[in-house]
């Protein structure tokens, strides 16, 4: 686990729950913008946006995890990740900070009612626990 501990993580919130992504998975973080809906597509797909001339999909993890849907506030952000060589945005309610974890524990079978296999582990911080997402698995399975 030592290796993991040296990694930096971006922490963010979905419906008041704290989550984290490995910083190397994050391409950039942008303000919320108009999302064009794609009718009849994957239910967890929020739509597509124009990221400086590139059209990229935006996923809705609130729906994926069965959380109450986001409401658009000043803090709403789109975290653009690199997954399977494709850029994909994720709507988050708030981005907190970049941190290192002092300790990472393997995920339990269920994390706040969500299947534990979506998680790399549970990171411990002074302010509490943060669920670290396996981004490829979350997006594609």
């Amino acid at each position: 686990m030592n290796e993991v501990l040296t990694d930096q993580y971006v922490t963010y919130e979905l419906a008041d729950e704290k989550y984290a992504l490995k910083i190397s998975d994050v391409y950039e973080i942008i303000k919320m913008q108009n999302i064009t809906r794609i009718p009849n597509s994957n239910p967890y797909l929020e739509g597509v946006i124009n990221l400086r001339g590139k059209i990229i999909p935006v996923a809705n993890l609130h729906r994926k995890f069965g959380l109450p849907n986001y409401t658009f506030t000043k803090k709403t952000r789109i975290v653009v990740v690199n997954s399977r060589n494709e850029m994909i945005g994720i709507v988050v309610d708030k981005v907190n900070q970049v941190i290192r974890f002092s300790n990472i524990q393997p995920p339990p079978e269920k994390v706040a009612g969500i299947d534990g296999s979506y998680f790399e582990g549970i990171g411990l911080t002074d302010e509490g626990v943060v669920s670290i997402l396996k981004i490829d698995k979350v997006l594609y399975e």
Partner: protein
Amino acid sequence: MANIFESPEIIGAFICEVEEQLQLLEINISKLKRNDETTETLQELFRAAHTLKGCSASMGFERMEILTREMENVLDRLCNGLLEISKPLVDILFECLDYLKMLKQDFVSNTNSIKTEITPVITKLKEIMTTKAIIEQRNQPIFVLDEKQQELINRALSMDQNVLVCEVEILEDSPMKSTRAYLIMNFFNECGMVISMIPNVLELPIGDDIGNVVFLISTQMSADVLEKKALNELMDVSKVKVFSYFDKSYQCKTDIKEDGLKDKDLLDKNNKSSEKTVEDEKQVLHTVKIDADRLERMRELVGELVIEQIRIAQISSNLYNQYPFDESIDDLVGISNRVSVLINELQDGIMKTRMIPLKQLFCQIPEMVGGLSHLLNKEINLVLEGEEIEIDRTIMEEMSDLLLYLIQNAIDHGIEKPEIRKKLGKPEKGTLRITALPEESNVIITVEDDGAGIDIQEIKMSAIKNQIVTQQEADNMTEQQLINLIFCMDFFTSKKVDTASDREFGMDIVRANIEKMNGIIDVETCVGTGTKFIIKLPIKLPLTLSTLKGLLIKINDEIYALPMSNVVEIVRKPKNEIESVNGQAVAVIRDKTVPLVWLHDYFGIPRGKERENTLIVLLGIAEKRFGLVVDELIGNQEIVVTNLGSYIGKVEGISGATILGNRSVACILDVLGLLDMVNSKRI
């Protein structure tokens, strides 16, 4: 030779090639006649004959192949100095040319009956080969130079270098002579440049037992110096002789002409003759053969250019709206417009490289109609119009089979026998009319006969029998819907009339092919007066799949783009003209009933409040039509199609997305996909 028929393009290419080669022959034989020939002239003649032989053989055009083969033999001897150029020989070559022209004419008018008898000229060619005084074979081998080598000589001369012949005799007992020869070649390459050699050292099998090698080299050194150097430095060599390539004793061809040519004179002469060729070439059809891959690459690049230009135009118009009084931005918009115009021209130019006239397809029709009408005892007056229109070769290829099939059906099932026509009070000769008309970026092709027409009841019965539709479904169908059923089955051949129709084809395949080309097909038929097929196809393939002309529409608040190629018409209908047939909303547009689709229902968008007038975009693909109800029209523009990527994957009814001028994203609707969606999902 039946297979030739299958590809008008190949026939076209063949005729084009033959014409080109005949012109080359003519120019060069004329040069022989004027005693104006060079080694190149003979080689060009030889190559032309050789090319003609090759292509006529692959076309199965036997007579041309035989004649060109004999010509090639004679020319080969001329090139190698085994035959002398003489008046009778030139006359015979001219005669051959005439025969070739006649053969070509025969081929153009009727591939299957080549009337020209070539035996007399063949005999003459054979005679000249055997009885003509054959020049005694020279001791020295003669270099046969191609254009590139000739060019090297000219260049060497222009740089005041010497062009020398080096004859080297390798020692009898030298081991590995081929390797030795190779080393000798390297030696000469160090002294200058080896232009040619006999035999070709590089192609010698290892262990080949060679004695003499002759090199033609260009070098700064004089003959004497090189000879001494070679004798001193080369090993295992018994004799080296170096002399100028332009030595009188060595020139085999020039001795027929003026004697005592000096190097400089020859250079002048070469220059003169090359001037002449430039002049002569003006008469030749200017066709250039280009590797298709290179063209394809250019096409791709132009495609990318188009995409970037669209973006530049969008951005400059955004800037213009933001800073309307900025002069630099004014300039930018101006330049961007100018570049757009240039790119459009470039795009047109590159697309034209792929275009061929419809004539290449139309020219086979008379033959086929003649044959078929004779077979079926029908009299047909064939009218062809619009053969000068040029369309993309791929589209022509895709279209040719289906067009021939439609014509075949018109003769087979459409036009009646003369007796019947007489009884019906129609002229005994039936008329088959095939026309092509350009319409913007499309071509409208019609196949129209004044025959029996298609009996709708017959289609209905046949469709029920083939289980395409149930009796009940058929009873509820409109006439047009019933007629369109012919595209769902192998309607015509199912009647099994004994015809020449051996093609594995059917109306269903016609439909599929047209759909593939994103075309539209319509049938109009009336019992007793005839049938008309109207096909609309794009003239050009899209430059890239990534741009298209799009119509932007709004469904509720969301903007979508429709490919213009599928938009047939845009109409506004008052509320009371929208009817319901079996629960399906329909409208009558140009005498045809079309179903209406509210995408709102499929996309989970509220329909919004009902308005006085409904805005309908009539969409079509192949024979299918439907009216899309939209809330607002925004306009049409060139759009860049972006694929949705693998995360989103395939979405029914949507082919991609595009970025609009205001930087928002709009989905592009896929008409065929929408149809499938509408047909499969009953809301």
